[in-house]
């Protein structure tokens, strides 16, 4: 498989101004000492690849850094550290503003979360889809019209709707416009941020099937961001599980959801409601996540909420280690890996999976 996008040690920090230690900072500044603002570690040293034609899922709780990671790799924000390679070309060093006019801008496109909010209310569906073509492909006149109509029909949007404004369309139709706009410039990588979160199940099915069909037709790679694990399971080849700025587990989607190894993934999978399942006696996460502001690099991010939380977990942060085609960042991964692989222990270890 050819690698399309390669992220290495990508980090994104945001400085935070106010805080309980503001007085201390002020004192330090007045005494002429160096000032160091505390930082939110939104994305902390993340590495992964997306292959050509692959659908990768990115899951995690809100606030875990999914959206920041997506903005960094679509080059909408600048990274604090690390490398992002599209093919052989390094993109991380290009400022986001410059990249907006770059020839490779068209190769990474995005479908945003709520199509109702992400389409300019003053643009008709036609203008919304035409916008990237005008800016990135400099298409005009008949060529532009033909291309817009072609992608609209590819996305199942009736041509009669092209003159409508977003508020005159249903949620499903707006979702189609959002997708048509993103694929108009024929990207290699399509990043989808919860594309169906605002839709009813009946419409969600149609949009998911449309995405699947487009992928087959156009040979794109998808990065699918979602917190709906049952959707990720159906759509994705591989999945990345993120917790507080770090990737804690990755591997083939079905394998990860059937036998999660990281304690966080286990809790996440256990929390997904399923038909006919009685919601009793399952792993529950207690408390709130640790603070992402200047986290102690020697403590596991999951420490405190994790049912294991052993003494090792607060002296050494676990690295992402490889087991076959999967990666897990947990000191106790071996125990889970062994337990799950040996069928004798499996039933006792986790009866509901």
């Amino acid at each position, binding site marked *: 498989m050819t690698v399309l996008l390669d992220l290495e040690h990508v980090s994104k920090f945001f400085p935070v101004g106010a805080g309980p230690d503001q007085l201390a900072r002020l004192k330090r500044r007045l005494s002429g000492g160096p000032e160091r603002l505390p930082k939110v570690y939104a994305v902390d040293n993340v590495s992964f690849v997306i292959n050509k034609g692959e659908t990768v899922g990115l899951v995690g*709780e*809100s606030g875990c850094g999914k959206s920041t990671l997506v903005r960094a790799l679509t080059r909408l924000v600048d990274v604090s550290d690390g490398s992002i390679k599209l093919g052989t070309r390094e993109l991380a060093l290009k400022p986001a503003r410059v990249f907006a006019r770059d020839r490779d801008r068209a190769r990474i496109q995005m479908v945003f979360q709520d199509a109702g909010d992400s389409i300019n209310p003053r643009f008709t569906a036609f203008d919304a889809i035409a916008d990237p073509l005008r800016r990135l492909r400099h298409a005009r006149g008949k060529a532009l019209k033909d291309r817009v109509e072609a992608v609209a029909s590819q996305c199942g949007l009736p041509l009669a709707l092209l003159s409508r404004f977003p508020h005159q369309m*249903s949620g499903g139709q707006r979702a189609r416009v959002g997708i048509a706009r993103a694929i108009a410039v024929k990207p290699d990588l399509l990043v989808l941020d919860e594309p169906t979160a605002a839709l*009813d*199940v*009946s*419409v*969600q*099915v*149609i949009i*998911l*099937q449309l995405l*699947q069909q487009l992928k087959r037709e156009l040979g794109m790679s998808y990065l699918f961001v979602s*917190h*709906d*694990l*049952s*959707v990720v*399971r*159906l*759509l994705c080849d591989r999945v990345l599980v993120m917790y507080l700025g770090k990737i804690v587990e990755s591997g083939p989607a079905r394998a990860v959801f059937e036998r999660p190894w990281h304690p966080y993934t286990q*809790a*996440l999978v*256990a*929390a*997904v*409601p*399923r*038909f*006919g*399942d*009685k*919601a009793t006696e*399952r792993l*529950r*996460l*207690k*408390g*709130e996540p640790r603070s992402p502001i200047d986290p102690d690099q020697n403590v596991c991010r999951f420490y405190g909420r994790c049912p294991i939380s052993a003494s090792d977990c607060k002296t050494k942060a676990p690295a992402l280690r490889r087991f076959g085609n999967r990666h897990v960042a947990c000191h106790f991964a071996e125990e889970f890996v062994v337990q799950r692989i040996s069928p004798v222990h499996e039933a006792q270890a986790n009866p509901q999976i």
Partner: protein
Amino acid sequence: MTTALALRVEQLSVEFRTRSGIVRALDNVSFSIRKGETIALVGESGSGKSVTAYAVMGILDPAGLVTNGRAMFGEIDLLAASPRRLAAIRGGEISMIFQNPRTALNPIRSVGRQIADVLIRHAKMPLRKALLQAIEMLRTVGITDPARRASAYPFELSGGMCQRVMIAMALAAKPTLLIADEPTTGLDVTTQAVIMDLIADLATELGMATIFITHDLALASQRATRIVVMHAGQVVENAPTADLFGQARHPYTAELIAATPDSAADLDDLAAIPGSLPDLRRSDLPPCRYSERCPRKIERCAQPLPQTVIDGEHVVACWNPLPVHARLKRAIGAA
């Protein structure tokens, strides 16, 4: 069944007068809930789930008008009760958890004080005692450091914590009936599981009946003993959870289950529901509002909706229900 009913809604119809015509939002909605029972109202957006709850609570938008029906809470008809009487019941014996805690909480009052307000009004507690009790409630719903958090304002708390505050407020006066309108929409699955456990535990502890409104069928199947399926303002099927998922009889219920991602092993197995909700402003709405999208439509569907009782508790509003052992067997198996 001998257990007493907590609430009985009978033939509730609601209309909204709007500039573009009369919206017939609810059409003869009937269901009941026993004391201590948890039922779920499910359906897509626009199916009338929330309007039902708002009508029962007497907090419909002024444009909304109850044109027919009763909602019997013990001996009291909530739809005919005086505003003063309703105000005494609401928040006390019947309370509600709203969908979006950030907009439902008062932004300029500390959360502890908001919970105390309920206790002052309904439990007639003096302020000081009510504030202490509010801290206890925050502890009950699993908020760490409740004494400090009680003086926080909603914007200082995360979405999950705001939802816990809403629950604490709804349960402060120990209601006998709780209406939870999409209590976990917008929360992470891990938080959702914890919040739903919390509601269930407190319901058991207080012997409270819970009407749980959701669009998530899988979640409903997990949490409710009985499920009421709504479509375009009508109740189409009402059945014990196991019966509904094992043997849905209404075509719409079957389609809804087949469209839920959890039921499928593969994306191609998911089936979309053909057509869309009818425009509820139309004056020529058919008696069965699903009939125009229904693959099983027959001539008889033009007659007023039946309430076919299949066995005891399982009621379906359909002239041509699915035969037993149709397509739904796999829904349970696949999970």
